[in-house]
C-alpha cells in the first residue's frame, strides 16, 4: 500500500542534475575513504525532519541497526502521516520498520492472537488502551519503566515522557507502570451548531440537564433538524464509548472492591438519561449510528449538536464534505449531577511485544520513542506536507505551540479552548472498567445499552441482565 503526501513540493523530479551526480560521486568517494564518516554525513538531514534534533538525544539511535520490525496499525489519517515520515526513522536508526494496516474491527483479535501465541509477528501495534490489563495480566508486553529509566535507551530530558497528555499516560499504565507510548489521542467534546444556538439565544450546555434543554430548543424534525445525537451502535468502542462518560459524570463507580458493578442507581440514572435523550431528540435509526454516521449527519446540517471525539472536527469542518463550515462551535463535556465532566481517554499507543529478541525490543523501543517524540508529532501535524493534518497530538506542549494552535483554531469557535481544557481537566483513566476481561465486559454492556435504547428491555432490566452476565464472566 502506498501513501504519498499531496504536496507537490515533495515530488521528486526525474531529472538528474549535475549537482546530484557530483554529490553521489562525492558521497561514494567519502564512503570508500572513511565508511564510518559516511553514516553521519548521509543522514544529516532526514526527508521530513532534521535528524540533528534526534541525534541531540544522548542515545545511540543505531543500536539495533539491521533489525526488521513490523508494526500493525489501522487505516486512519494519523497513521498514514506516520507511514509517510517513517523513512526518516529507517534513515536515523537503520532499523527496517514497516507499518501494516489492519481494519479496526480485526486489529485487536490479530494482536491478541499474535501475543498469546508468542509468534512475535508484530513488534508493536496500535493498542487499544482498554486491552492493557489483559496484556499485562498475561505478561505479553514489557513494562516500559525499564526502558524509560535506562539512560542507554532513553534520554529522559529529550524524550520528556511527562509531557505526554496525563490522561493518555494513565490509560496506558497498569498499577502505575507504563506499558505503551501514546501516539495519537483524543478528548470528547461537545460540538454544536453555533448559528442555530445563536438564533435561539442559547449557549452550549454546562450540565447534562442543559444539554437536554438545548436539544429540545433546537429540535425541529419537520425541518430536518434533530436536537442531538450520541453513538448508538452496539460495541465496546461505540455506545460503550459514550455511556461510560455519562455514567461517571452521574457519579458511578465501576468497582465495588473486586466486583464490577454496572446496575448501581447511578448506572440506571445514566442509562435512563441516555435512552430518553436519544429517543426524544435523535434521528430515527440512531441505535445503528457510530460516530462517522453522526459526523456525516452533522455535516449535512441535520443535527443541533453531538458529543464525540475532538478529532471529528476535521470531518465536520471539511469544506469538501460539510455544509456547516463556519457555523460550528465547541465546548467541554457537560457536567453531570456529580459535578464532573468526564471525557474518554481514548488513544492509540505502542507497547513492546514481550516475545521479541532483546535486539528487536530495542528496535521497537526506538520506534515507540521516535513516534511519540515531539519532533514526529510536529512532523505529522502542522509540518506535515500533505493535506491531512492530525488533531490528536499526544503532547501537552504541542497544545501550547502557536503553530499547532493556529492549525487547530481553523475548525471553529472555541475549539482550542474546549480541547485544551478537556485534556487538562476532564480526562478520567477510570472512564471505563479497566480489567483483563474488558473485551467481554465491554460487549455485554454494549448489548445491554442498545437493547435499552431500542426498547427491548427497560434500562433497569437491561442493566440487571448485564450484571448477571458480567458476574459470570468474572467468575470465569
Amino acid at each position, binding site marked *: 500500500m502506498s501513501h*504519498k503526501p499531496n504536496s507537490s513540493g515533495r515530488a521528486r523530479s526525474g531529472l538528474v542534475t549535475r549537482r546530484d551526480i557530483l554529490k553521489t560521486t562525492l558521497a561514494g568517494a567519502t564512503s570508500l575513504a572513511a565508511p564510518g564518516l559516511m553514516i553521519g554525513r548521509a543522514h544529516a538531514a532526514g526527508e521530513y525532519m532534521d535528524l540533528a534534533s534526534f541525534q541531540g538525544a544522548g542515545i545511540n539511535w543505531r543500536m539495533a541497526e539491521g533489525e526488521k520490525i*513490523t508494526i500493525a496499525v*489501522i487505516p*486512519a489519517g494519523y497513521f498514514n502521516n506516520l507511514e509517510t515520515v517513517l523513512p526518516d526513522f529507517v534513515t536515523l536508526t537503520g532499523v527496517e520498520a514497516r507499518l*501494516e494496516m489492519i*481494519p479496526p474491527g480485526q486489529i485487536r483479535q490479530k494482536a491478541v492472537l499474535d501475543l498469546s*501465541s508468542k509468534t512475535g*509477528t508484530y513488534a508493536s501495534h496500535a493498542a487499544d488502551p482498554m486491552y492493557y490489563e489483559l496484556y499485562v495480566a498475561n505478561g505479553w508486553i514489557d513494562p516500559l519503566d525499564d526502558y524509560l529509566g535506562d539512560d542507554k535507551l532513553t534520554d529522559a530530558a529529550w524524550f520528556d515522557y511527562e509531557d505526554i497528555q496525563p490522561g493518555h499516560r494513565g490509560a496506558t499504565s497498569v498499577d502505575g507502570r507504563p506499558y505503551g507510548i501514546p501516539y495519537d489521542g483524543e478528548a470528547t467534546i461537545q460540538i454544536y451548531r453555533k448559528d442555530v444556538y445563536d438564533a435561539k439565544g442559547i449557549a452550549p450546555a454546562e450540565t447534562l440537564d442543559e444539554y437536554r434543554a438545548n436539544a429540545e430548543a433546537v429540535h425541529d424534525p419537520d425541518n430536518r433538524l434533530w436536537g442531538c445525537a450520541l453513538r448508538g451502535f452496539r460495541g465496546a468502542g461505540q455506545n460503550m464509548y459514550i455511556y461510560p462518560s455519562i455514567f461517571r459524570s452521574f457519579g458511578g463507580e465501576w468497582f465495588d472492591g473486586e466486583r464490577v458493578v454496572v446496575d448501581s442507581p447511578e448506572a440506571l440514572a445514566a442509562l435512563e438519561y441516555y435512552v430518553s435523550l436519544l429517543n426524544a431528540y435523535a434521528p430515527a435509526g440512531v441505535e445503528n449510528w457510530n460516530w462517522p454516521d453522526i459526523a*456525516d449527519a452533522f455535516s449535512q446540517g441535520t443535527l443541533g449538536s453531538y458529543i464525540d471525539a475532538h478529532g471529528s472536527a476535521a470531518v465536520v469542518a471539511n469544506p469538501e464534505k460539510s455544509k456547516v463550515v463556519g457555523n460550528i462551535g465547541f465546548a467541554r463535556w457537560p457536567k453531570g449531577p456529580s459535578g464532573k465532566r468526564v471525557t474518554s481517554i481514548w488513544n492509540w499507543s505502542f507497547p513492546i511485544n514481550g516475545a521479541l529478541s532483546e535486539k528487536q525490543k530495542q528496535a521497537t523501543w526506538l520506534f515507540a520513542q521516535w513516534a511519540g517524540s515531539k519532533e514526529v508529532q510536529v512532523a505529522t501535524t502542522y509540518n506535515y506536507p500533505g493535506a491531512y493534518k492530525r488533531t490528536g497530538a499526544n503532547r501537552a506542549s504541542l497544545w501550547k505551540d502557536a503553530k499547532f494552535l493556529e492549525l487547530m483554531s481553523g475548525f471553529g469557535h472555541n475549539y482550542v479552548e474546549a480541547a485544551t481544557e478537556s485534556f487538562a481537566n476532564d480526562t478520567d483513566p477510570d472512564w471505563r472498567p479497566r480489567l483483563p476481561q474488558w473485551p467481554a465486559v465491554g460487549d455485554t454492556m454494549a448489548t445491554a445499552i442498545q437493547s435499552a435504547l431500542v426498547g427491548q428491555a427497560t434500562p433497569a432490566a437491561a442493566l440487571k441482565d448485564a450484571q448477571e452476565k458480567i458476574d459470570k464472566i468474572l467468575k470465569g
Partner: protein
Amino acid sequence: MSLHRRAATRRKVVLMAVAAALLLVWVFPLIWAVIVSFKSESDVLAYPPTVFFEPIGRNYEDALFGDFSILDSLATSAIVSVSTTVLTIVLAVPAAYAFARLKLPAKKSIGFYTLATQMVPPVGLVIPYFLILNKVSMLDTYTGMIIVYLTFSLPFAIWLMVSYMEDIPFEMEEAAFLDKATRWQTLWHIIIPQVRGGIAVTVIFVFLNAWNEFLFAVQLGGNTVRPVTVAMYNFVSVEQTLWAKLSAAALIAMLPVVIIGIAAQKQIVKGLTIGAVKGGGRR
C-alpha cells in the same frame, strides 16, 4: 371465458409485481452502490438524495490509483483465487470420480469426513491455521493462503462434483471399458465432457468464495498477501467512511466475478438442471 382470461392476466401482473418487489430488495444495494460511486462525497449524504447530478469518475480513479489504490490487491486476489480454483478442480475431479465410481474401502466414512471438515465454523479454524502457518513460516505468503483456501474449497468441490458424476449413466463408461480404455482415459474422454456444466458451477462457486473471502485473508495475510476484500477496508477508517470510493472499489472488485458469471452462464444453467434431475443414480 373473458373473466377467466382477465383473472389470469391479473394473476400475472400480481406475480410480476411481487417478483419485482422481492428482486428490488436484493438489487437495491447494488443500484445504490453504482449511483454513489459516481457522486462526490458531499453528494452521497445529501438530503433529499440528489437524483440529477454530474457523474464523476474521480472515485474510480482514486480507488485504482489514489492513496489507497486497490490495484495491487486486485492482483493478489486474482493470484490467490485463480490458483485456488485451478488446484481445486485438478484435485477434486479425480477425487469425486473415485467417490462416485470406485470400490474404495470405507468409502462412506471417507465421504463423510471429507464433508465434516466443512462443519467447523471458519472462526474456529482461524487460530489453529494461524499457529500452523506461523510454525512453517507461511503467514502472509501466497502458498500459505492458497493451501488454507484449498482446505475449504476442496471438500466443497468434491462433494458437488460427486453428485454430477453419479448422474452419468454407467453404461457410457462400460462401453469405453469394452474398448479397452483405461480409467484415466474414461475419465478424460467420457466423464469430464459429460460434467462440463458441473465443473463450470464448481469453478464459479470456488472462485467466488476465494475472491470474496475476508476472515482468513485478514488474519493470515499481511502486507504481502492483501486481497481486495481487506484492502477495501481502507475506505472505512475509524474517522470516516468514504462511501463513494468504497462503492467504486467494491464495483471494481465485483467485475471479475460478474464477467466469469456471464461467460459461464450457459454452462451453469445446464449444470444446475443436470444436478437437479436424479436419473442415473448410484450403481
